[in-house]
């Protein structure tokens, strides 16, 4: 059963995953080409000064890519389920409804985490060419909320899309926007280093919210409107 569910999820997200993999890697390569240009062809001393003393973030253009990846993957996964209420087929499979939702959500989340790890690996390798570990760590802590925001956005799209009533969807979307935007506040490097645990915790907690929409769907809320 696990294999079958994961197969279905894979069929839904594979193209989105591929697109965001290419997009992220392309963005990162572009970032390091710019860094290389800055170090080699501008004044390297000046460039380092801007990063270390002035707190410029060389990876700034990566900012919204994890967010878009989270949104894109969730839409790729949940749109085919809500179209024509196909989620009924999923709920009808011989498996507990909450379990199948968590399996779907878990698979999507795992895929997103793998994608983000690839981003981070490329980021790490690229950074290691130009910067010492202190700088890399500083930037890593700064960009980490962006990735956690991507995970939270992924989970919240599931909650919104599976919700049977449009009014609630809009309400959830507004709250989700307010919540996820907290992960993307413009800040100097390390400003949120003490808050990383909070970002991580809230991002993880959003994962199970999809169960609430699943419950409302099975209760038949869409029939009462």
């Amino acid at each position: 059963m696990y294999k079958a569910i994961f197969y279905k999820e894979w069929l839904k997200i594979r193209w989105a995953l591929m697109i965001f993999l290419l997009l992220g890697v392309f963005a990162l390569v572009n970032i390091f080409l710019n860094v290389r240009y800055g170090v080699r062809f501008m004044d390297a001393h000046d460039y380092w000064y801007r990063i270390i003393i002035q707190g410029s973030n060389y990876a700034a253009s990566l900012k919204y890519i994890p967010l878009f990846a989270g949104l894109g993957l969730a839409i790729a996964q949940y749109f085919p389920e809500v179209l024509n209420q196909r989620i009924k087929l999923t709920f009808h499979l011989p498996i507990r409804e909450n379990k199948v939702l968590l399996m779907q959500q878990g698979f999507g989340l795992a895929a997103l985490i793998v994608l983000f790890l690839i981003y981070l690996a490329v980021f790490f390798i690229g950074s290691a060419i130009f910067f010492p570990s202190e700088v890399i760590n500083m930037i890593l802590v700064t960009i980490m909320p962006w990735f956690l925001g991507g995970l939270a956005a992924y989970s919240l799209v599931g909650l919104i899309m599976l919700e049977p009533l449009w009014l609630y969807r809009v309400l959830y979307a507004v709250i989700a926007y307010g919540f996820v935007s907290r992960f993307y506040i413009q800040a100097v490097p390390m400003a949120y280093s003490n808050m990383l645990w909070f970002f991580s915790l809230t991002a993880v907690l959003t994962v199970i919210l999809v169960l609430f929409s699943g419950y409302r769907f099975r209760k038949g809320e869409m029939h009462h409107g």
Partner: protein
Amino acid sequence: MYAIECNNLTHYYGKKLVYENLNFKVEEGKILGLLGKNGAGKSTTINIMNGFLHPYAGECLIYGEDSQHLTPATKEKIGFLIEGHVQYAFMNVHQIEKFYSGCYKRWNSEPYWELLSKLQVTPNQKISRMSCGQRSQVALGLILAQDPQLLVLDDFSMGLDPGYRRLFIDYLREYAKANNKTVFVTSHIIQDMERLIDDLLIMDYNRILAQQPVDEFMTKFRQYNIILDNPDIPFPKNGLSVNVEQIRAKVSFYTYAERKEVEGYLNREGIPFKSIEEINMNLEDAFIGLTGKY
């Protein structure tokens, strides 16, 4: 144990009553057709039976389990065709077979490929690119391959041309009878039902109008065309009458009574008539006779 047992089902949409204290049972091995006009509560019943709607009151048991909390073992016994033959349309015919075969222990792909061999589809053609008729065969093939004990088919005829409807019905009936399957089916097209079902359940707004074997219903429910002597005398709509449609002197009288009883009834009520003739009805005529045209 019954395959389906609904007890005192009551449901409202807001303040609008759909039905109150609805009771029905479906015996194992029977093909039951749920008939009703639009809005009579067919979809409500199907949704409650499949656990997609909590009823206001009452319960619906599937193999003895509350439909709102079916165990995976019971869900495995139920094949469910969603209205419009909805399936995972982003898959092609091979992918969808591979997916479902991993979900059901009793999976037997033979009937699926047999049905698909009749279609002009390429192996990699996505379901979303198929015609409605082709999709219906994919959906039916998947249910047959699942080998469930109970098949719940919600408006299977929607969007199908006559050829596909006939193919669907003939295949389904033969399969169900050969394998002692229970089938619960709804359809907008009543003609189809006559070829398919053993028992019928006719719903009208808020109530059940008939629940019995089709043969019994077709034998006992009758239409008489009566030509009145005087069209100005109002024709009674009580007593033996189930439904009366009158156009001046011509009355279509629907009843469970035999001809002699009807004649005696008209005499007792003081309604002179020129002639009375029993009309042969098919299931669609009988359905309209019972529920009315409006």
